């Protein structure tokens, strides 16, 4: 039995009413716990793309993939976990910030490649995009200033350009390497 790791699936689905419900229902029913789920349009009309992050070992990951493929509205599933990929979340963080603290907060933003996008005499709102750990890092540094409010998206992810984009349907999701 392999270890539980956090896994990222890119799931291409038909853009039809109720598809999100079907996918969410599958994860709930099979006790696959979702850490984050993001859905949005793609460049192809009628095709939406979900990024689903969840914890699973190798066997469970294969079963998640196979169960997703069983759904009529699911077009293609890509387990990005061990592929070279880019993943991003976007977060908005509103922190307390007096005039005296502004320079320090803006320097912190620079270090994290974050941006101040709104400011009032006592507050700054910061936008950051990046992998989850970078967002977590910024949050921990900002916490002493007093975080008033925060919102973040689920992870979105895709493979890097070096990975071949193979749209073929896998004949046997339970691959040989994991069955040995």
């Amino acid at each position, binding site marked *: 039995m392999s270890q539980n790791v956090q896994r990222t699936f890119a799931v291409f689905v038909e853009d039809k009413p*109720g598809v999100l419900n079907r996918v969410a229902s599958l994860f709930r029913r099979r006790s696959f716990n979702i850490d984050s789920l993001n859905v949005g349009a793609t460049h192809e009309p009628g095709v939406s793309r979900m990024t689903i992050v969840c914890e699973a070992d190798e066997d469970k990951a294969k079963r998640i993939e*196979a169960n997703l493929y*069983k759904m*009529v509205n*699911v077009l293609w599933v890509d387990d990005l976990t061990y592929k070279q990929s880019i993943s991003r979340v976007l977060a908005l963080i509103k922190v307390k910030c007096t005039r005296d603290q502004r320079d320090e907060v803006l320097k912190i933003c620079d270090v994290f490649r974050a941006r101040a996008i709104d400011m009032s005499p006592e507050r700054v709102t910061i936008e950051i995009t990046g992998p989850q750990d970078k967002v977590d890092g910024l949050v921990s540094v900002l916490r002493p200033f007093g975080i008033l409010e925060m919102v973040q998206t689920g992870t979105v992810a895709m493979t890097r350009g070096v990975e071949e984009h193979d749209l073929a349907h896998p004949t046997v*999701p*339970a691959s*040989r390497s994991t069955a040995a």
Partner: protein
Amino acid sequence: MTPANPKLKNRIGESLSGANIIWESLVREGVEVCFGYPGGAIMPAYDAMIQYPIHHVLTRHEQGASHMADGYARASGQVGVCIATSGPGATNLVTGIATAMLDSIPIVCITGQVPSHLIGSDAFQETDITGCTIPVTKHNYLVTKPEQVAPTIREAFYIARSGRPGPVVVDITKDAQQQNCVFEWSDDEIVLPGYRPDYAPLAEQLEEAVELIQNAKRPILFAGHGVMNAGATGALLEFIDKTNIPVACTLLGLGGFPASHPRNLGMMGMHGETWVNKAIQDSDLIIAVGMRFDDRVTGNLKTYAPNAKKIHIELDPAEINKNVRVDVPIVGDARAVLLELLPHVDKCDRKDWLTYIEEIKGGSSVRDIKNLPDLGKLYAAHVIHDLYRHTEGKALVVTDVGQHQMWEAQYYKHDYPMKLLTSGGLGTMGFALPAGIGAKFAKPEDSVWIICGDGGFQMTQAELSTCAQEGIKVNVAIINNGFLGMVRQWQEFFFGGRYVATPLLSPDFVKIAEAHGLTGIRVEKRSEVEAAVRKAEETDGTVVIDFRVEQEDSVYPMVPAGANLQDMIQRPEEPGEQEHNPIFETGEDN
């Protein structure tokens, strides 16, 4: 595709109501019988039905309709169809839908829905049935426009019967039934971009499987329901005749390999034969065909077949490594895979292994109740064994859920496929009578025997009225022990003999039959069994036999839930005297 029904006028290109298009589509899909119950939101469809060559069977409850469609599908191999109204009509179907889902049975359920402008308003008899049935259907649809009716029903049938079969719900709003549109029908192949049920086995996996089979000293093959679904019974027979590998069947696999074949060991699992489970535990190779390693089959997974390599031939990739880790998964159609393997495996007599199995069989089979005297009592196992002999093993048997279901599996030997219909996965009490009625419509020439307990019979007993109204002939054998027998057995074995909520007061089943204008017979002694069976077979119309059997008998052998497969509770030497054995109280509560 489907040959056009000669009774059907060609109305392609005409403006028809959605209601008409429902039946146009069903007839074109080959439907001749459907089971249902009318109501407000489906009334336009019912009103249009009389124009079409479809026999509608009015059930007494929508659960009956979904079980009948299921029984029809199991007996015929075709898609079964049921129809109900919105709200309670639709929710009443759900038990039957879930039953079909867990046993991979192709049914299409047409439900009425409130008019589309009322959806979401909590209108009278509104239920979100597509939402309700997502987890228990293979797929489902909400149809709100008449133009969608025909293509959706085509897709529904295609999805229901292709790949690993399953139930599909098509929910059609009342306005979509009432409005007109130009009826169009295509017989072209259906291509759904996200649905590809056509898995082909990989060559290297076939090679590895051949190598394992060639090197195995103690192989065993599991025949599951998938063998019959794939039409692989002939291929399996050829494969076994060449390789001499002994076969164990799952409950739903019974009949997929002839019971009388010398290589057939019998049923495996919780109430499987001792020698079968022992052979599994001692095997060095398992070839699992069209089965899914259910917990009732494996017992404790940690100690399951510890020395066996495992080849899993299965159509559904989501079943691979779900419960049992396998060495060689082969995703594909059972028939195709067996035929691919056949030329590459050698003929073999397997003398040592088969002799060993015969040895372990000898000891345990003499404790079989079949070999025990009845001591003047009527044992259920005797009833079923006698029924088997008097029907010459040729009846189409439909069982309910519980003790009688296991006794049937043990004592009615099925040589032919699709002659045992039973709710295996979901274990739905109340399944047998309606499923048996559905089966009779699929196979009117068959002698249909419905075997059920006194508990399960009463769950759907109202369908006796359906038998009477339709004038059909089925035989109902009630194994009446005055208890919810399987639960009572568990209470005896695992709950200190506290019979909580299991003693069951039943009406006089003979009078119940007679009140429906049907024939009722009571049997209290073994000597009366044969005469009752013969009388039932000769009587026109449905017959109910009330077999008053021994009240506190148990099904043996038994692997307690979650226990090791080899640790079976055996039938005590004297019938009816179960020695209390505390080591078996380790079973999980499931």
